[in-house]
């Protein structure tokens, strides 16, 4: 009896394991969805009007990992909603780029799966096969260095790394070495962990380059933070608006557009950029190959790359990818454009190889340096 029941259990176990080992089948799309999912430009819908109509019919858009205070995303989402009357479901505003991809894989075929992505360079280039190629109406305005040739992933907005600080709480900063002074004890923070978050990685890169390294060399930056930690000046806290406003992290390395958003809330928030080549970082927009709302996803891209969408980035302090073309055409929001901090030196646009080498060194040495 014992043996038999064990056999029964084993058979059941084997069957169930076999089933669970492979993942579930995909649900079938209807034909309208399938057509929209293969559209590579508005033309494939029969023009913008048809695209708008198709998107409105879908009625909703799933976005993921878009914090409202990041590069003006709050207003961008509101603008899209108001203009097209399409509902925007914003999931996990705090997720990382990698988590966006994971969510897409995990929720594949479900009505909560993300339709569009906004991801950092490393994740974008590692997952091109998950993205649907699409060329927006303003495609030709986008410099070719900022897009995949087939339109699977395209840079949208970006900025330069900078050091933001609350002049009301700490002395003015004129060089990175100032941070080692006792006045900065327990005050210097990063926006995330450099082995996990893109923004923090680029903060280390900025320091590294200011200390004589190249875009792929992390060692000088890691050494700097190691000393900063030794001096007791580095706080191991994720900087957020809350930690800045409450005075917990009065000095934060961050993208200049996030610093600009901070200055709007906290007038004493100042920005320092070390001399040398500024570190640029652009985020990629992409459409999920498995989008539940393929037309709305494409309309979202059209909106982001339209004059209206691009100017919204600008108002958030970020640099839209079509800035040059719009400046020539006179459609740019001149007031906001002129307010961008001036850039001195030739910007560094890190290559994927730079990113990989940099991240590898961080993975091996970051924990040791600040542990």
């Amino acid at each position, binding site marked *: 009896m014992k043996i038999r029941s064990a056999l029964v259990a084993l058979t059941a176990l084997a069957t169930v394991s076999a089933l669970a080992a492979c993942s579930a089948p995909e649900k079938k799309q209807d034909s309208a969805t399938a057509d929209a999912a293969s559209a590579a430009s508005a033309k494939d819908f029969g023009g913008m009007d048809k695209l708008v109509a198709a998107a409105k019919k879908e009625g909703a858009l799933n976005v993921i990992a878009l914090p409202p205070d990041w590069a003006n995303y709050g207003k961008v989402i509101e603008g899209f909603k108001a203009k097209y009357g399409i509902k925007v479901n914003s999931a996990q505003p705090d997720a*990382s780029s990698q988590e966006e991809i994971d969510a897409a894989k995990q929720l594949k075929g479900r009505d909560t799966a993300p339709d569009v992505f906004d991801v950092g360079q490393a994740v974008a280039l590692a997952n091109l096969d998950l993205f649907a190629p699409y060329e927006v109406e303003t495609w030709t305005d986008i410099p070719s260095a900022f897009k995949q040739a087939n339109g699977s992933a395209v840079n949208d907005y970006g900025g330069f790394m900078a050091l933001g600080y609350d002049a009301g709480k700490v002395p003015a900063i004129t060089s990175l070495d100032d941070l080692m002074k006792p006045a900065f004890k327990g005050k210097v923070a990063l926006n995330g962990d450099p082995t996990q978050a893109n923004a923090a990685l680029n903060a280390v890169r900025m320091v590294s380059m200011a200390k004589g390294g190249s875009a792929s060399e992390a060692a000088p930056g890691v050494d700097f933070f190691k000393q900063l930690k030794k001096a007791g000046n580095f706080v191991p806290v994720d900087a957020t608006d809350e930690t800045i406003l409450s005075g917990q992290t009065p000095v934060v390395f961050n993208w200049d557009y996030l610093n600009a958003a901070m200055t709007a809330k906290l007038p004493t928030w100042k920005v320092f950029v070390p001399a040398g080549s500024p570190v640029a970082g652009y985020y990629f927009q992409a459409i999920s190959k498995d989008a539940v709302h393929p037309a709305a996803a494409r309309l979202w891209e059209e909106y982001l790359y339209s004059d209206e969408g691009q100017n919204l980035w600008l108002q958030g302090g970020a640099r839209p990818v079509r800035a040059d073309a719009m400046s020539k055409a006179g459609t740019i929001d001149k007031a906001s454009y002129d307010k961008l901090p001036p850039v001195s030196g030739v910007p560094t646009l890190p290559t994927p190889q730079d990113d990989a080498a940099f991240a590898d060194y961080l993975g091996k040495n970051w*924990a040791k340096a600040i542990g």
Partner: protein
Amino acid sequence: MTRLSRVMPALGLLPFLAYVVIFMVIPTINVAIGAFQDNDGVFTGANISGLFDATMMTTLWRSVQVSAVSAVLGAILGTVLAAVIVTAPATSLLRRGVMALTSVFAQFGGVTLAFAFIATVGAQGILTVLLADHGGFDLYGDGWLYGVRGLILVYLYFQIPLMVVVFVPALEGLRPQWREAAVSLGASRRQYLTQVAVPLLRPAFLGSVLLLFANAFAAYATAAALVSQGQIILPLMIRAGLTSEVLLGRQHLAYAIALEMIIVVAIVMVAYALLLRRTSRWLR
């Protein structure tokens, strides 16, 4: 009896068995297999050898440190508290109250606990502000709360009560007759303690330390909510492997770390079970 009627009753267990297999056994097997695969499902030893690189070994060491220190401190302090309760009469309000509270506190942990300590000794914490205003003492310092020392302190909040919960029965098992017997044979209080009570309680104490160790070693939520800079312990390393947008393709390293965790916890739990068996032989 026919064969069928003999098997039938066992079939009643099928729903339960199937459920446990699907939601616990298969994921665990997935981890064990995934630890030996790369992203494309090809078998490889790279993840396992990755566990032995310097960073990962340091992380393992820190994990052991946090678990061991919080277990030993928790066990000692828990024993003190248990001794205070046990010497009160069994029906007293104090004893009942403390026992009820410890079983509550032993379950606290995770996000809410991390927040409780941030509110107390974080940068804006009540105690931090209090000490800074009166006496100018800098409790917050270099942000120790978010490192190994902070984790140990926060873990004590559930380790001490857990120790009380598991150790009070052992203390209660010390029969007054044994003490009377020892005393009537001329033993002093100290002799009774060192020659009778301590040897009797040692296996129970060591077993409890192991249980506390496993409890801390497997804990994720508290650390995840508290520590955001640097993956200082193994569970956080798993999080980084799964979610990092910078170091890609390390999901399977996370599988290997998870396997490492099962192995450590399993060894500790087996040792615990063995010690428990020895205690129950003595204290019945």
